[in-house]
């Protein structure tokens, strides 16, 4: 079992030789960083994960490791199972009746995918931001307070709402409209409200499913800047169709595609710079250079 790696100074040989492991990009290349830092600490580990909708296998045999305080981007052509994989991590796809997954998904060493783990508990620890901003039909304040309330937050709710909005870089925009509808905000503000709402329940990991695809370039840039800020405290996994976004915003990139049977699989996982400048796999090179997908 590969648990809390920060407390295990010994290197895991399997992740050393360019295997499927995701490295924290900055660490791996930063020569100033002392070698004794060793392997980054992995928060999320997907081990041999396959996803099925009924008899259809949507994703097969995925191994991914996500380092703490990093941004990992999942890229790949439409329909290759990126979103399915993402929604498997926080057990969101459990809501789809015909869905099931195999393999294990470890969060801090604990298997989230086991039937004995309550998906409701998982989702508090693994937050999610969706493609289209989906604020609740409530006030801005209530949008942020909803998560803490339902999870039995005992502290000062007003303080938590303000902190969350500040962390989502939205406080200055909305501090005078806390009692207005969250749906009255602009698209980019709504998405940052959804991020504020997500971090208000203090998750360890934030999953983002194409969070900028419904936003204009300016709002997109704001979200990307916000992500860079958020990774200091959270670990982010983002699905994106926008390769420039993956190149700009992520530390590690996972390239997925699908085979003849339409089952998605991971082609290559590497520091983002390597994926875009020096891909090892021909499929990756074809994709990032725009030859297909």
């Amino acid at each position, binding site marked *: 079992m590969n648990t809390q790696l920060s407390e295990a100074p010994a290197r895991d040989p399997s992740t050393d030789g360019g295997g499927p492991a995701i490295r924290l990009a900055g660490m791996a290349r930063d020569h100033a960083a002392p070698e004794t830092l060793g392997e980054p600490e992995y928060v999320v580990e997907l081990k041999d994960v396959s996803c099925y909708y009924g008899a259809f296998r949507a994703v097969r045999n995925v191994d991914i490791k996500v380092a703490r305080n990093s941004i990992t981007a999942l890229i790949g052509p439409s329909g290759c199972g990126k979103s399915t994989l993402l929604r498997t991590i926080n057990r969101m796809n459990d809501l789809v009746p015909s869905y099931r997954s195999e393999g294990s998904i470890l969060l801090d060493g604990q298997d989230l995918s086991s039937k004995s783990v309550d998906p409701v508990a998982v989702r508090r620890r693994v937050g999610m931001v969706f493609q289209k901003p989906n604020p609740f039909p409530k006030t801005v304040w209530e949008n942020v307070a909803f998560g803490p309330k339902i999870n039995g937050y005992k502290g000062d709710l007003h303080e938590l709402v303000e902190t969350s909005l500040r962390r989502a870089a939205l406080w200055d925009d909305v501090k005078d409209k806390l009692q207005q509808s969250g749906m009255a905000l602009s698209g980019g503000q709504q998405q940052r409200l*959804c991020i504020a709402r997500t971090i208000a329940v203090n998750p360890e990991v934030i999953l983002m499913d194409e969070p900028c695809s419904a936003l204009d370039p300016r709002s997109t840039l704001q979200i990307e800047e916000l992500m860079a800020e958020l990774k200091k405290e959270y670990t982010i996994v983002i699905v994106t169709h926008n390769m420039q976004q993956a190149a700009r915003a992520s530390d590690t990139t996972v390239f997925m595609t699908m085979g003849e049977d339409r089952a998605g699989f991971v082609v290559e996982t590497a520091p983002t710079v390597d994926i875009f400048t020096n891909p090892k796999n021909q499929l990756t090179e074809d994709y990032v250079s725009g030859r297909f997908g």
Partner: protein
Amino acid sequence: MSLTSTSAVDPAVRFEPALMRRKLSGTVFYGLCVMAVGILLLALVMLLADVLVRGLPWLDWDFMTGGPSRRPANAGILPALVGSLMVGIIVGVVTFPVGIAAAIYLNEYASDSWVNRVLQTNISNLAGVPSIIYGILGLAVFVRLMELGSTILSAGLTLTLLILPVVIIASIEALRAVPNAQREGAYALGATRWQMVRGSVLPAASPGIMTGIILAMARAIGEAAPLILIGAFAFVTFLPNPFTGSYTVLPIQIYDWARRPQDDFAGIAAAAIIVILVLMLVLNALALILRARLSRHIQW
């Protein structure tokens, strides 16, 4: 591919815009729509004018505070008005939780199985069953079996059964109109199913649900047929007790007055119709206000 399809177009084929004819058909359709509204308006204006002309002279304080009498000059509406209001309250109190809960179960909890679909189709059918049949049901179940007697309670419960299908269907439609992204948003924060329904789906659906309930209540208050069967009296001179004894309601009072031979009772009936129309107007206004208030945070 685009090249072949372009070359496939026969250059001999010409467009015939026929702009005049297309515009004319548009004008004809517009005219038909205006006419439809005109027919509705005409019927409404005629009804209102007739009722107001006949009824207004009889509509005074004595009429509002008096009970029925054999002499038109002494006849009043109070027992029927109070009866209708009490029935309305019982209908509202029972319909509100039962209707919403049933709709939530069918739309949010029950899996999309054929049983569920058959159930929903049947509920839609129930909404079309003639109201007199609900009277028979109410007589058998509430008056006789449960021994509630011919009371306002029986009447309220019978009318609740009558409007529940309509309320459930309207509520299901309102719940169905809530985007799935709302449900996922709540789930993603670690909400249980009930917390998701309570915190996200219900607030989003509440304008539609409340409107449906209030409009259905208006229908219940306007019903006469089932109440005749379960024993609403036409001649009640005292204020009813909802749990014991006889009662009457506005539509039955109107029916009773309207069928009497004396001309003056036609005027009294018209006055009562004005009262029930005002009651409807108040309920509909309430529905509008509630809708506006509940949907102030909703912008899909």
